[in-house]
């Protein structure tokens, strides 16, 4: 696999670690870095061909071996530079896979419409991690049991939880799942069907992994 990595300046760390990772996997890596000082330093540190130049310049890309490259990955901090580098690689040198970093998440959709095969937005990835975290912050995954066939987890019912006030019998929990215990005011209750859940209850759940999402959603009203 021949990979061309474009970037430097603000993204120099990413370029360094990626080129090291790719080189270890046995890929043939060429780095195009616009700053001669950085390029010189990189060429000493990583097993890659390093070219100092503008990655959106057709002549520089050709020198970097774009005609035979499998992937061009453009990771500069300027979205227009990433777009043009990928388009030149694709259109002029027929590089099969072009991947671009977008710094402005609004550009993700635009880059796809303009023909970049793979687009990723660091802002969006980190943003969605945090969102996921907050949707389910009342859930703690305790441990897998029976070689991962069962999951034990714990969650707290807040004021918006639709399960609060209902009995377990009314809840219609999915198959292969169980509210194993309720922890209320420091007391452990092993519930039966007629026991009602309350706000601030901590529930210990046992379920098969495929049903977990559904159960969290049924109990907390969030996610899915």
């Amino acid at each position: 696999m021949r990979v061309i990595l474009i970037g430097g300046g603000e993204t120099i760390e990413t370029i360094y670690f990626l080129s090291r990772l790719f080189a270890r996997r046995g890929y043939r890596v060429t780095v195009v870095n616009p700053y001669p000082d950085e390029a010189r330093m990189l060429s000493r540190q990583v097993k890659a061909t390093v070219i100092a130049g503008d990655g959106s310049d057709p002549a520089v890309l050709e020198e970097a071996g774009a005609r035979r490259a499998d992937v061009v990955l453009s990771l500069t901090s300027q979205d227009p530079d990433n777009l043009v580098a990928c388009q030149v690689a694709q259109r002029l040198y027929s590089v099969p896979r072009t991947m671009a970093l977008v710094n402005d998440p609004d550009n993700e959709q635009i880059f796809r419409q303009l023909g970049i095969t793979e687009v990723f937005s660091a802002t969006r990835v980190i943003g969605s991690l945090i969102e996921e975290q907050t949707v389910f912050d009342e859930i703690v995954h305790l441990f897998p049991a029976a070689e991962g066939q069962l999951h034990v987890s714990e969650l707290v019912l807040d004021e918006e939880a639709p399960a609060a006030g209902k009995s377990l019998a009314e809840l219609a929990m999915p198959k292969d799942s169980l509210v194993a215990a309720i922890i209320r005011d420091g007391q452990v209750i092993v519930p039966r069907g007629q026991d009602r859940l309350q706000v601030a209850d901590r529930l210990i759940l046992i379920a098969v992994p495929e049903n977990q999402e559904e159960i969290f959603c049924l109990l907390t009203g969030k996610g899915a």
Partner: protein
Amino acid sequence: MQPHQYVIIIGCGRLGSMLANQLSSLGSSVVVIDREESAFGNLSTEFSGFLVTGDAAELDVLRRARIDQADCLLAITQYDNVNLMVAQVAQTIFQVPKVIARVYHPEREGVYGQFGIETICPTRLSAEALLSAVGNQPEAKQS
């Protein structure tokens, strides 16, 4: 160019401000976008168009300039890649009828010419003008 057009000019440097002044005095509605507010100082006092401060590579900035209603967009910042990106967004996403990007780099101009983006390359135009001024037109060589 016909008068009463709605024209967006990206980049208010020497060329951008000159075009904006002239188009505005010919009766077009002109919006000028530049990242630097100080760039608008290049416009003449008679300029009657609108100014938008911001990076035209951001969708929101183009929307603020009401790009969906534009008849024409001229992308003439000093950065080739910004011009090429904005021109493509204008043409592909907002279907602006007339879009031109200034591209200094002749090779890059060639690539985008093939893919339906209208470009103007000052480097090539100057080279041609200079060659013809010194009596060395490329066309004349073949005969």
